[in-house]
Each structure stands twice: as C-alpha cells, then as structure tokens.
C-alpha cells in the first residue's frame, strides 16, 4: 500500500483535545506537510489547551502562545525578526480558531494580509468559541444553537474567504481534514508561495456540535459533499479553482443528513431547513460564478 500522507510525525501522541477533535487532526496534518522548519503562533483558542499546560507541548516545533487577537501581528513580528537575523528558510504558521480569525483577530489579520507579510495563516473553524464553552462567533451558521444563541443564531455565517480574497493575497484555500491528501497538498503549496497565505479549514467539534465523536470525519466530509463547505483555491485574489475530491453538487438529502446528525441543529423547523438548503444552493451558485469569472479573465 502506498502512503500519500507523509509519515513524518511532528506532533506527539499525547495532547489534550477531546475525542474526535477535528482541530487536533488538522494540526497533525499541517505539521506533516510543513515539516520541522516551522514555528507556530497560537492565539487563545482550544489549541492553547490542546497543546498542554506548562511545561508540556504537543508539537515538535517551537510554539508561541499569544493573546487572542494577535495571531496576525505577532506572526508579522516573528517573520520580520527571522528575516533580519538571516533565517529565511523558516515557515511561520499562525494557527487560530474562528473566533481569533473572524472576530477579535480580524483587524490584525487584515493588516498583515494588506502588507502581504510572509506567513501561513490557518483558521481551524469549529464554528463557535469552544475554549470558553460554545458561544457563538460570526462563523457560527444560521440556525445553530450555541450557549449565547440559546434558541438559534439569527445571522448568517460570515464569509471569511471572500474577505481574505479581497486582500488579493497570493493564496487562499478552503481545506478539510476529511480530505487529507487535498489538505496536505494545499499546505505544501502554500509553503512554496511567498506572502500571506490563508487556509480556512472547517473542523468538527463533537462537544460543541453535539454529535458523537466517531462521526467527526464523516461530518466534515458531508459538509464538502453537500456543498456546505466547498473546497477551492484562489490565487492572487482572482483565479478560482474548485477542487473536486468527489462529485459535488448541493444536495438536499446530504444537507439534511449533515444537519440531522448534530444536536446544535435539533431545533430547526422544516421551514428553517428549507431556508438553509436554499441558502447553500445560492452560495454555491455564487461560487460557480466566480469560477466562471476565471474564464472571462482568460478571454
């Protein structure tokens, strides 16, 4: 059997993630892709806990725990220092949750992206503030329960890819641990590009999504297959490429089985579900339009 995923392991077997944590697996895959010449910048998020308390660390590379909103700015500072000290072959990896990216850290991230500072930023998006006990973020989808949206979230999920793409950064991509080959390919590709590179990875949090841990991978795969979380790449803010690890089109049945498996969507009415399906379809069309846009540019 041929392994397509690097066997190099840059995470220790011991860490403090909950069973089924997609965020833990995402880091493991990312470090496999990026290798040992990597430095991690970690703002407050579940990973601040997952990596272990003093004196532990779950990763085999240097890691800097930093303030919640500073992944972008601290990464810029580290990269600048490495440059001036002549250490040019180190990848700086900012690793933040959806709260640290979509909300409190957006300003610093936007500024770093505008400067096109040279680091990879991965947002592992579990769609809420999980560290502090499942409060809504602007990445929480419409209709989802959280401890601060006890009925359901009334606002749609913020489109972080659109925001980052608007900065015309050299590389932005969505990725999923349910497609490890694609995930690793994207991180490797990002590694070879200079400037700000952004990866948006949807990951399942069984605790916060209220699902059983053994379907964690299955759920994020369903998210891709159903069109909820399409996998795509954008170069220089212009060239969109849809990645099709499997045949995808927004599918009523698949969307319903994604929602149905999660306790956070238990309160949805039939009308709510219909709205969600309709929204996913129109988002999908919007994405296809952008991909068509490529062709227009080429002409």
């Amino acid at each position: 059997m041929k392994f397509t995923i690097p066997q190099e392991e840059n995470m220790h077997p011991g860490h403090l993630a909950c069973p089924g944590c997609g965020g833990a697996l995402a880091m493991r895959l990312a470090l496999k892709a990026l290798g040992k010449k990597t430095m991690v910048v970690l703002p407050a998020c579940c990973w601040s806990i997952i990596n272990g308390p003093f004196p532990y660390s779950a990763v085999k590379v240097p890691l800097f725990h930093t303030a919640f909103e500073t992944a972008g700015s601290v990464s810029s500072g580290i990269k600048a220092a490495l440059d001036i000290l002549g250490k040019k072959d180190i990848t700086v990896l900012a690793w933040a949750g959806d709260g640290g990216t979509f909300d409190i850290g957006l300003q610093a991230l936007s500024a770093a992206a505008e400067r096109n500072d040279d680091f990879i930023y991965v947002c592992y998006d579990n769609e809420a503030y999980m560290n502090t006990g499942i409060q809504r973020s602007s990445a929480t989808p419409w209709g989802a329960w959280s401890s601060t949206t006890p009925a359901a979230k009334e606002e749609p999920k913020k489109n972080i890819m659109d925001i980052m793409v608007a900065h015309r950064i050299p590389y932005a991509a969505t990725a999923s641990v349910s497609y490890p080959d694609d995930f690793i390919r994207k991180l490797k590709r990002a590694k070879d590009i200079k400037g700000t590179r952004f990866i948006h990875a949807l990951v399942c949090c069984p605790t916060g999504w209220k699902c059983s841990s053994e379907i964690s991978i299955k759920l994020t795969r369903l998210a891709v297959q159903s069109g909820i979380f399409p996998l795509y790449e954008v170069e220089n803010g212009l060239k969109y490429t849809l990645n099709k690890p499997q045949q995808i089109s927004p599918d009523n049945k698949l969307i319903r089985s994604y929602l149905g498996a999660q306790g956070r969507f238990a309160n949805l009415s039939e009308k709510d579900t219909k709205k969600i399906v309709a929204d996913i379809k129109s988002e999908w069309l919007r994405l296809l339009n952008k991909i068509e846009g490529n062709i227009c540019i080429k002409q």
Partner: protein
Amino acid sequence: MKEVMSGNHAVSYGAMLSRAQVIAAYPITPQTQIVEMLSEFCRTGRLKAKFIKVESEHSALAACIGASIAGARAFTATSAQGLALMHELIHWAANGRMPIVMADVNRSMAPGWSIWTDQNDSLSQRDTGWLQFYCESNQEVIDTIIQGYKIAETVLLPVMVVLDAFVLSHTSEGVDIPEQKLVDKFLPPYKPQYKMDLNQTLAFGALVTPDYNFELKYQIQEAMEYSLTLARKVDKEFKRFSGRNYGLIEPYRCARAEIILVTSGTITSTAREVIDNLRKQGEKIGLLKIRMFRPFPAQEVIEALEDCKKVAVIDRNIGYGVGGILCQEIKSAFCNNARRPEIFGYITGIGGRDVTPDTIMEIVIDVRKNNKADNRIKYVGLRKLR
C-alpha cells in the same frame, strides 16, 4: 557630535544608535515624528531594521513581542490612547520577559481630546512589570533609550522611556549624539538565552497552573528589585564613555535643605530655576528629581528626604480617588521609616496646563506657611469652578 533636535528625534536617534532590529509603531500626536524619522532611517539604510507598518498600537506591541521572542531587538513608541490600546500586551511583554524598549510621549487621556501633557497615560501602566524612566531633557531621552536596552536585556523586562508632550517632544535643544562605535561597545548585540529556535522547540507562554504561576510572578518582582542595582551600574558605565549620567533620582541643592520639592519630567527644569533663585536669597530649599519611577527607588528617596522638614511633591497626574501618584509612592516609602518629614501633595499642570516658575513659587509659598501636612490634595493653577 552635537546637534539641535527635538525630544522626538532624540528618541529616534536613541533607537538607531541602539541598533533596534524590528520597529513597529503607529502614528499618534505628539509621537508621530519618532515614527517618521525611524522609517526614514530604515529607508536610507542608516538603520538596518525591519519597520512593520502596523494598523494599530495594539499590533505594534504585538509585533514587537513576536520580534523579541524570535531574538531581535524591538522598539516601539506611542502616546496616551495608543498606550492604553496596548494594555493587554503591555502585560504580555513583561510577563513574557521581553526586553522591548518603548518611548511614551506623555499625553492626557481622552475624552475630551487632548494632545497635551500629563502623566496619567504612563502611570496607569505602573503595575505591569515595565521599568519606567521619566526624562527631563532631550539629552536624557537619547541616553535613556540606550541605557534602557542595556538594562532591559540584562533583567529581561521591558523598559518605558517617558517624555512630556511638546515641552520635550517638540522642543529643540542641543543634544550630544554618542558615537556609534562607543554605543556598540556599551550595548553589544542582543543574544537571548531562550527564543523561538528550531533547536530548542520550546512552547512559550503555555497555560500555567497555580502550581507554578506564583513563582513566575515573584521572579518579575525579583528582577525589578535587581534592576535598581543594575540601573545604577549601567548609568555609571554610561558615564565612562559619554561623560553623562543621571542617577535613579537626582537630589539638587538639597544640602541642609528644610524644604525639598519633588518633581518628575520637565517640571524639574522649571523647578531648578526657582530653587536657584531662592538659594541665592538664602532660603534652605532643594529639589529631588525622580527619574526612575518603576521600580521605585524608595531607599534612595528616603535617604534624600529624611533630613528635611517638609517635602512638597508635585504631581502632573491624578490617581482618581486618592491623589497625586508620586505623592502616594513617597508617603508609602516613608510609612515605616522612623524619621519622616511632613509630606505635602500638590497637583498641577493637568492636561498640559502650563507649569511656570510662578506655579512652583505658589507651591513654595504654601509649604512655607504650613507646618503640619494632612492628606488634603492641593491643586495649583486650578480655576475656581463655583
């Protein structure tokens, strides 16, 4: 080489001579010229540094923190609102033991908008673990930045160099620019023992349980206490090549003084003049300048003041609900001392209101006629409201 320059440019020269390697700063009046001059130094190559043009002071200090932990000498400068915006990271820099040097141009906190000096911005950061120096002249500014790095990198604590808005920041004076070669000998390149390093693979700043945290915080206090000795030593060493030093505090004409005024920042220069005049007339009066505010050199302050009868502490700040902050520090320094002068507290010059020799004289006249101090706060130059 002597040059005429503003306090702000003295800051920039200080950072350049210290060979800061990463600079991240954001413009705010009255600090802006510091940033402008440093970006020019970087552009022309006079300073080999990375200048990160951040979008906020919060990111400025965050970037400095990143640079510092990766092993570079980092510099930033700000004022008032910018300093307040940094607050979370001000703690981060100290708790993370990062020897960053920052210049703060004292400016009154809004609202209402003000660009003029008082010390509430920097003094409200006093319990964060940063060393603080308050400067009297532009020469002292440039020298203190250089000394600041030497101290910071030895004790692994950040240093704040404070100067008054406009009275220093925008006022030009003759400044002797130390020779780069000599500065280099005094301040060798930054070589941290611990940093982000592929060979060490450490995790910095992880969750720390009650089992460890107390000791970490205690060590900051220990480092603070050691900074007193160290700053004295560094100041003396600085004199050896530059001919200048300042002390942590400076007693001025205090011999056999019955009354001693206590000042910080530029009010000191104004008070010197008043003291000179009064001494000429035979009055037994002196002046104590507080240069280092954190750590507070309490023992030196006691020794400078314990022999006089009355002390008048002049504060350009208000600790709301308590009074002048310097005055509180001095009172508490004397609390367990057998000999204790009467300590009078005066607040003046808030929001950049002028402090002139007349203001100082008003204080002198008031102390002269009172023999017992109480805890009432006295305001000088305050308009009658009702």
